[in-house]
Every structure is written in structure tokens, then in C-alpha cells.
């Protein structure tokens, strides 16, 4: 049982001030813009909830939101099972374990636009390794800048390359925390590999997998730099995800009102998921 102590607020105060400066002030700016119309020169007119109504009916927003959910759904469906499989087949101890972990974590430490640029170079049709292999060795017509399907496949593979290791590392952390005695007991009982997975490994990985799935959900839902550098949202609007569209409206066209309204709706969606996440996480603690 934790001690009740209101003085603890003093410990939290620095964080509170810093985050208030960084989060509250910008959020108020966004709210302010979302209800006004501007024609430049710092002239603002009251717009009420007009932007929200327009946005919720706008096909452009629906399309971007749809693409965003499709992207997030697809990478979760690939990365989570793949990550668990890789973690299960890793050795539990030995010299190679830290080496493997470091190599696996490497993609996550590369600046996001370098990731995009790297995959751009990698997939160039005639001079990139992947582009050359696809076009000249496998004979598949592959050009990401013209074919929407190829562009989609590439951003998905890039994200799998970039982030599957997160799932691997988390699942692995869960697996190594299982005492050897559990496996011995299972062997004595003559349990199959599947029932060892189902009744020993999976329950132990439950909490870390929750973290993994929800971290992946949120980060892929907010993704901007990598697909932007790789495809620029194209060809056409094929890979214009939610953040890319938002930055286009806010910093490209400087349409402050619609951009702010879009930001708030975007934020409410992430907030809802965060709440879900937090509830799931703390349920076990009680």
C-alpha cells in the first residue's frame, strides 16, 4: 500500500510546468484557430463549429482517415505475429543474444527521414538493390513512384523493417522472465510445443504484448516522416496518411482553421486509444 502524501506534488511540479508549457499553450492555440477564419494580416473572424462540420463531411478527410486505419491495421497484422515468432525462436542465453538484440534495435535508432531516404535509394528501379532485383532478376514490374500498389507495399515493408524489432524485444523480455522450472514441469507432463506456448509463454507475454500493440498502434497512427520522405504521399494521394495531409494543410496551404479542426479530431482519436491503453495497463496492477 502506497503512502498518501500530498507533498509528493512538489516532486511532480517541474514536470507539470514543463509539460503545461509544451502541451497546454499549443493546445489552446489550436482550439482558438479551430473556431475562426483568417484571411491573413492577423484578421480573424468567428467561425463557430463550421470547420468541424465541413471536415466531418469532407471526402478528403474520410479518405486520409481510411488510409490511416488501413495502414495501421496492416502493419499490426504483420508485425505482431512476426515479432512473436522471431522472439520465440531466439536463444534464451549465450554470447550471441546481446549481439542479436543490438542488431535488431539498430533500425529504430536511425533518424526517420534517413529511414525514408534509405528505402528510397534501396528501391530505385534500376540502381537500387531491391528495385534491380524486382525488375531485372524476378521480372516483376516494380516502380514505387508510379504504381500505388507498389507504393503501399513499400511503405508497409519499410515499417515492418523499422519497427518489428520493438515487438521482438518486448516479447523476448517477457519470455526470458519465465523461470526454467515452468518448462521442466511442462516437459514432465509431456506438453506439446503448442500447449507450452498457449499456457506458459503467451500468458507471460500478455502484458508486454499489450504495450507492444498499443505503442505500435499509436506510433503508426501518428507516422509522418518516413512515408513522406519515401513517397511524398504519392503517387497522387495514394499514400497520403493523416499526418501528411495535416501538415500539407497547416504548413503548406496555411489553412489554419481547417488544420486546427483536423488536429483536434485527430487528437481525440489518439486520446481515446490512450485511455483504452491506460485502462488495460493499470487493470492488472490493482
Amino acid at each position, binding site marked *: 500500500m502506497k503512502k498518501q502524501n500530498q507533498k509528493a506534488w512538489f516532486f511532480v511540479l517541474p514536470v507539470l510546468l514543463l509539460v503545461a508549457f509544451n502541451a497546454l499553450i499549443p493546445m489552446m492555440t489550436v482550439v482558438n484557430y479551430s473556431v475562426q477564419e483568417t484571411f491573413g494580416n492577423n484578421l480573424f473572424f468567428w467561425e463557430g463549429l463550421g470547420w468541424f462540420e465541413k471536415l466531418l463531411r469532407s471526402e478528403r478527410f474520410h479518405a486520409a482517415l481510411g488510409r490511416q486505419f488501413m495502414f495501421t491495421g496492416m502493419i499490426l497484422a504483420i508485425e505482431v505475429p512476426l515479432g512473436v515468432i522471431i522472439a520465440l525462436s531466439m536463444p534464451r542465453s549465450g554470447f550471441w543474444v546481446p549481439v542479436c538484440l543490438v542488431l535488431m534495435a539498430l533500425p529504430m535508432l536511425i533518424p526517420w527521414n534517413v529511414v525514408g531516404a534509405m528505402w528510397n535509394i534501396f528501391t530505385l528501379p534500376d540502381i537500387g538493390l531491391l528495385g534491380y532485383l524486382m525488375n531485372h532478376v524476378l521480372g516483376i514490374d516494380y516502380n514505387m513512384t508510379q504504381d500505388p500498389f507498389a507504393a503501399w507495399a513499400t511503405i508497409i515493408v519499410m515499417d515492418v523493417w523499422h519497427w518489428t524489432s520493438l515487438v521482438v524485444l518486448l516479447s523476448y523480455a517477457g519470455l526470458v522472465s519465465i523461470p526454467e522450472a515452468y518448462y521442466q514441469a511442462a516437459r514432465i507432463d509431456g506438453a506439446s510445443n503448442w500447449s507450452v506456448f498457449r499456457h506458459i509463454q503467451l500468458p507471460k507475454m500478455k502484458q508486454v504484448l499489450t*504495450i507492444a500493440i498499443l505503442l505500435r498502434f499509436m506510433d503508426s497512427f501518428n507516422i509522418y516522416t518516413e512515408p513522406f520522405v519515401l513517397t511524398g504521399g504519392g503517387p497522387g494521394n495514394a499514400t497520403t496518411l493523416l499526418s501528411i495531409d495535416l501538415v500539407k494543410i497547416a504548413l503548406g496551404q496555411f489553412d489554419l482553421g481547417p*488544420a486546427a479542426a483536423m488536429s483536434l479530431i485527430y487528437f481525440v482519436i489518439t486520446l481515446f486509444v490512450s485511455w483504452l491503453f491506460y485502462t488495460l495497463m493499470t487493470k492488472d496492477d490493482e
Partner: protein
Amino acid sequence: MRKRSLIPLLYILFLLLPIYWLIAMSFKTTGEILSGFSLFPQTWTFDNYRTIFTDPTWYWGYFNSITYVALNTVISLAVALPAAYAFSRYRFLGDKHLFFWLLTNRMAPAAVFALPFFQLYSAVGLFDTHIAVALAHTLFNVPLAVWILEGFMSSVPKELDETAYVDGYSFPRFFTRIFLPTIKAGVGVAAFFCFMFSWVELLLAKTLTAVAAKPIAATMTKTASSAGYELGLLAAAGTLTIIPGAIVIWFVRNHIAKGFALGRV
């Protein structure tokens, strides 16, 4: 057992292929890159690297990035340590709500904050400074650091604190002499994550800087569009951005798995 280890091996191979390609490109001349496909550099050249190490607009990019990343790590840890201690040891009015509110900032899309941050930091006169980027990155790093540290701190039994008080330690002395050394792995992991997320983020860093504090990653995008399309140079600059991460991760290699689990395994 043999067949099983093939899966991680193939996976690592898949991870290394694009990285290999980037490194191979960085040693090729622009002429060779554009003239056609070659698996290895035919004529090795170090010109791309020479350009980066001699041209101030390039190497200052690295200094700028490392400066704001280091500042961010120090600030984030300094404010997160006491807060994490409070969350892990005490119950106080509104603690759960506060923790959740912190988390929402880790989850907010950076794109939402780009424009307001630009205006906020311009208004307080910090635009195009290292400290502006460092402070902006605390938005998602402080919640993460609090979260990781809280996880590590909660696995230390409370008896440690109580014994220290009985032994006559004051709080600051206890915290710095006994508690911090006990959770030093957690501090290392939190520092690593602050470093990592500040190092890889570009949207906010680019929005908040113009010349004086421009990060290396932004220098890359600018050069890519202005100086024609010098793929070799771009590849060399990209290769150099991998090195700091690779060095830092080696130090926390035994704790990263636990760190990603936010100390909650």
C-alpha cells in the same frame, strides 16, 4: 534447435540489407551510382565523406543534432526523476489523472504540434536555438522517461527507503547516495530512450530551426533537393547518422529489452 535459429538469422539479414545498400552507396561516385547497378563499389571513393567533414554546413548539422539531443536528455531526466519517484512511492490527489495526462502527450501526433510550436517558440524568442528543440522534444520524452523510471523504481522494495530513514539519511542524501545507484540501469535505459527519440525525430526539429540550430537530418533533405540529386553524399550523411545510435545502444544492450517493456517485466 539449429533450424529454429534460422528465423532470427534471416530477419537480421533482412534488417541489414537496406543498411548495407546505404553504406555501399556512400562509397560510390555519383557517376557510378547513376550509370547502373553494381553490388559493390567498383571504384572506392571517400569524397562523399570528405565533403561532409570539410563543409561546415554539413558537420555543423551533426553538432546541432547532438547538442539538442544531449540537452533534451539532461532536462528530461532531471524533471522525470523526482516525478517518477512520487508516482512510484506515494498516493496523492489526482495522481492517476496526472499520469494519464502525461501519457497523452507521448501519444499526441507531432504533426498537431508543429505549427503551434513554431508560434510559441517564436513568441518567446527561442526560435532557431538548440534549447527550443530540446524543450520541444521533452513533450514526448518526459512522459516516456517518467514511465520507464516509475517501472524500474517500483521494482525496488519500499523497505529500502524506510531502512535508510531509520539509519538517519536525509531525503536528498538517500536519493543520490542509495536510491539512484540502485536504479542506475533504469536511469541508463531512460537516458537511452530520450536520446533515441530526440535523435530520430525530425518534424519538430525542422520546424523550430532555420540556420543556427539546424539538425543534420534537415541538412540532408535540403541538400537532396538543392544540389541536384547527389545520392552518394546523401548516403554518406545517412550512414553517419547511424553511428551515434549504434554506440549508445551497445552500452544498454543488456537492459534494452526490459527498457522497451517500460521496466514492467
